[in-house]
């Protein structure tokens, strides 16, 4: 990259306007090995982005290492599951007046350098939630065929439900504005929440947008999704999506 031709695109930073307060929500369950590096990477990349780690009842030193790395830590008294953990982060964002919240996994598969791509549409008010997609043109994903089939099946169903093309419904790399923070602080699915949350958001009249991102191979730990759980995952999400068709959504989203 030549120094002389620095395009505005390459100069992008995560918080282009100092008045915008952004929060990174990082749910973590026994991630003591990867957390320090992930937090350091985010702080290196954008020192203005505040980081809150939601420790979902870890039995290792997740909370201590996160604090030592300079993150704010919310310690849940026991494991409440990914949905409840992430929602705690959204409640923190709402109560502390953040304008933007971005969900980042604690295992290092989400690259902080992609965060500006997620925030840009929010700052330009083109969307209320921006999801980093591995499958949108320009994204990259390597995974087992079975997982890809599941991901594509959900994508087809969700695309139908929200009447827009959605390519990656299970991506946990997403950013939201104040309106969506308020929604998710009140209403967020308890387990395997990403697919339902997307539909919920659109059904509540908010705008969702996908941007292509590259995701990395997780550095430590295993995916929480085993064979038996993936069956439960599929059935539960399909049931929730079906029932959701008959629900009326009346969550108040205007600020008091």
């Amino acid at each position, binding site marked *: 990259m030549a120094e002389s031709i620095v395009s505005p695109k390459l100069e992008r930073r995560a918080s282009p306007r100092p008045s915008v307060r952004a929060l990174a929500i990082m749910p973590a369950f026994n991630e003591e090995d990867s957390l320090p590096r992930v937090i350091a990477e985010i702080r290196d990349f954008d020192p203005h982005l505040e980081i809150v780690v939601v420790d979902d009842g870890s039995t290792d030193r997740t909370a201590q290492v996160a604090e030592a790395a300079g993150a704010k830590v919310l310690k849940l*008294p*026991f494991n409440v599951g990914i949905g409840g953990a992430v929602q705690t982060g959204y409640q923190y964002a709402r109560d502390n007046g953040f304008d933007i919240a971005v969900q980042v996994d604690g295992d290092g598969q989400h690259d902080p350098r992609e965060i500006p791509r997620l925030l840009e549409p929010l700052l330009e008010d083109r969307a209320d939630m921006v999801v980093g997609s591995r499958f949108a043109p320009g994204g990259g994903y390597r995974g087992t065929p079975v997982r890809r089939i599941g991901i594509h099946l959900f994508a087809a169903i969700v695309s139908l439900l929200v009447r827009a093309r959605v390519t990656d419904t299970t991506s946990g790399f997403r950013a939201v504005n104040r309106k969506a923070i308020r929604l998710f602080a009140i209403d967020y699915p*308890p*387990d395997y929440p990403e697919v339902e949350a997307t539909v919920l958001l659109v059904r509540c009249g908010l705008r969702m947008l996908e941007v292509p991102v590259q995701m990395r191979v997780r550095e430590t730990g295993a995916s929480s999704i085993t064979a038996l759980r993936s069956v439960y995952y599929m059935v*539960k999400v399909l*049931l*929730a999506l079906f*029932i959701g068709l*008959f*629900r009326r959504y009346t969550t108040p989203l205007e600020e008091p």
Partner: protein
Amino acid sequence: MTPLRVSIYAAVAAVILLLVILELIRSRRLQERYALLWLLTGIVILVLALWRGALGTLSDAVGIHYPPSALFVIGSVFILLVLLHYSTVISDLSERNTKLAQRLALLETRLEEEGIQETSSR
């Protein structure tokens, strides 16, 4: 062979059960994760009520001469499973409840020691 009337009533009962479960989920009084076993119960009973040949074969295989009894047994087994599942759920909840109460007591003491007035009305 199962008497036709038994099949009809069993099927109607299963459909009502399924509808009630779905309505409970819709109105958010029942979470999906706790509804799955109930839904499976309703579906199995519905299938065996309608598919009378299968119920006959099944009851023959286990030596039950009157097929509706087999339906009854299967229903009982599922109810047993649901109850057992709920017992584990209740155990988990009560453990969490204790933890929450303990954390709250410790927090309250710490707040008082730090001189912060309690705002909650008693």
